[in-house]
């Protein structure tokens, strides 16, 4: 049991940090532009596929650098030539624009790489067990993933809190007009932030691709969970996004590794159910409902805190 707890905690923190890599970009973009980028998970997917394609030709390390750059450039272009144009049509149009974009990106990825998973492998340099706890080998690549996401998290924190650029970005979050009056090009800041945000999502894609599955439905699978994270954390709150990412990462990882069901807990009491619908609920294991746990968590938290954990204003 201890083994299970240690491994699940490690995996949960890892998954949570990956979620935060994406949720942080999403949150900063949302607070600045007022748009929840529906296509954010699609940039994660693009990152993974670019990573796969580049590492096929040049190896994993160039891919880790170039793929986020490419995705970030695409993201900046999307902001410059798409979103900025749609902005005057209102918030719904902006959200729908990114929704359409997510749809198109998925179809394009399907056209180019097909629907089945591609063979995106862990680089040979990192393909060994890092350490062994209780007879379980923990792969080095997972440690590398954890390291990268923590490093980026720290870099982001320092960049936002300590550097001049970070200060301008923070100021532009709340008072874009004032920042504009002070002589900063707010439009360009927005474009850069959008580009950096999508690049972060792409980093997550490059490092998650080999560990998870690189497939054309990966955006569709992850996207809704990502939105659950930002809603649960409170829209526009970085701290909330961080806590919610870890929370959902841990909860889901632990749920996957548990096999209990209502029947196995209360079974000895002899409350067997013959009614088929109840029997379904009775016999389902926690591992089986793991995919819906984030959504259940969202509903429960929003029942008590409609603004999310750290949300402040109605947006």
């Amino acid at each position, binding site marked *: 049991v201890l083994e299970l707890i240690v491994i699940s905690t490690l995996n949960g923190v890892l998954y949570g940090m990956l979620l935060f890599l994406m949720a942080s970009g999403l949150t900063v973009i*949302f607070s600045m532009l007022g748009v*929840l980028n529906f296509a954010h998970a699609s940039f994660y997917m693009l990152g993974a596929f670019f990573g796969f394609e580049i590492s096929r030709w040049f190896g994993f390390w160039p891919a880790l650098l170039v793929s986020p750059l490419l995705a970030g450039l695409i993201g900046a272009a999307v902001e410059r030539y*798409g979103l900025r*144009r*749609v902005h005057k*049509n*209102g*918030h*719904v*149009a902006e*959200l*729908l*624009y990114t*929704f*359409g*974009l997510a*749809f*198109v990106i998925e*179809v*394009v990825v399907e*056209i*180019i790489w*097909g629907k089945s998973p591609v063979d995106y492998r862990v680089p040979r340099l990192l393909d060994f067990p890092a350490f062994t706890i209780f007879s379980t080998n923990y792969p080095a690549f997972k440690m590398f993933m954890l390291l990268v996401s923590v490093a980026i998290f720290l870099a982001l924190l320092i960049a936002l809190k300590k550097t001049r650029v970070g200060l301008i970005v923070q100021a532009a979050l709340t008072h874009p007009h004032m920042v504009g009056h002070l002589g900063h090009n707010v439009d360009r800041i927005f474009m850069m932030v959008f580009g950096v945000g999508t690049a972060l999502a792409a980093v997550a894609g490059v490092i998650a691709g080999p560990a998870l599955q690189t497939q054309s439905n990966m955006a*569709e699978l992850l996207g*809704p969970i990502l*939105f*659950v994270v*930002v*809603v649960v954390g409170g*829209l526009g709150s970085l701290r909330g996004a961080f806590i919610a990412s870890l929370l959902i990462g841990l909860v889901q990882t632990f749920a996957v590794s548990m096999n209990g069901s209502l029947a196995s807990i209360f079974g000895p009491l002899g409350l067997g159910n013959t009614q*088929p*619908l109840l*029997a*379904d*609920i009775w016999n*389902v294991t926690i591992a*089986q*409902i793991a*995919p*819906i746990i*984030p*959504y*259940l968590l*969202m*509903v429960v938290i*929003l*029942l008590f805190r*409609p603004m999310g954990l750290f949300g402040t204003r*109605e*947006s």
Partner: protein
Amino acid sequence: MSDLSKVAAPPLSISSNKVCFHGSWIAAAIALLALPYIFSSGGSLTTFSLIGISIIFSLSYNILLGQTGMLSFGHAVYYGLGGFAAIHGMNLIATFKLPVPLPLVPLIGGISGLFFAAIFGWVPTRRSRTAFAMISLGVAELVASSSLILRSFFGGEAGISANRTKLLPVFGWNFGPEVQIYYLVAFWTLLSAIAMYALTRTPFGRMCNAVRDNPERVQFVGYDPHVIRFLAFCFAGFFAGIAGALAAINFEIANAAYLGAAQSGVVLFATYIGGVGYFIGPIIGAIFVTYLSLALSDLTTVWQLYFGLFFIAVVMFAPGGITGLLMKHRPLVRAGTMFTVLRAYLVALVPTLTMIAGLILGIEIVVQHTINAGEDPHTKAFGVHFNAASPLIWLLATALVIGGFVVARAAWRWVAKAWDEALNTAREKGFHA
């Protein structure tokens, strides 16, 4: 949101307009009655039934998006649950030989849609705008994933089927033939459309518009925006349930795809492309999108890509949808200045179509090289044959796109000028939008 949908329900005016208004419903009824006599083939009847279902579904969605300003990413949940309820209802009626005829089954779907909307709607409707959209998405995922767990109700991957002919016949109709189903769908489409139109005229409908435009003021007047959003959500769920039940009756099966994200996306596409600002918008959108998806899938393998690009184009260039675009020209037509604009449109259309043709050609070449890699490069899309391997075709596609883009940009500037002039003349004559 206010700029999107200003005139969702203009006030009823003078009696001559009233005649015109009632006349249009009667004309719609006659058209629905006559359609099977004009197009009597089974295929077109099926298409009409699908369009009718889509119309109800899109109109119900517009109660949320257009009337109340709520962007939902999970409306298919109530459509799907309505469908499942209808299938289970039909099976129960058939087993116990209950005296319920098939035409009443959509009501079962509607009531279950209402029931589930009331359960799932309370939490999301606390918030508006982006937060509502995200929460509706989460709830939709919750239900869609649960449908794969609760196998006895949802039937797992395969779904659950029923036999619609096992129910009581009505006036000798057993609803086996396609034409009888068509009339059933047409009847419910007309009834639901009238009901939903009537809903926009009630004080409640007006409060929905108010919540959309300025929720704070609604609070000052003494209403709770949350309750109004919740009620609108329930109404939308009710009509979505009717649409889902009709779909279940049409296909005699309900499966998890009914309440999935794709279905929610389709209704969003249809409603928005049609135009959320006018009552008729979703109707036009439903007809257009259903027809387009059927027609495009015959023409090319990557029709979804064109569909998505078209949607993005609508969001970028015509946020009012098709009806919004048409209605913008009303003052010009009235003032008689439409001609100059129309001429400008025709001129601009040539380079624009050239550019689009180049884009399509480029996409089809890429498709030929990726999806059909290793096959004969001589291919055919949209009925045109070409050789995807020749460098000439690449050159042609690039030239068409770049040339078309440069000329089109200049041409559309000219259109904008012509438009401004025409609109100014119209305004001087006293015709406002």
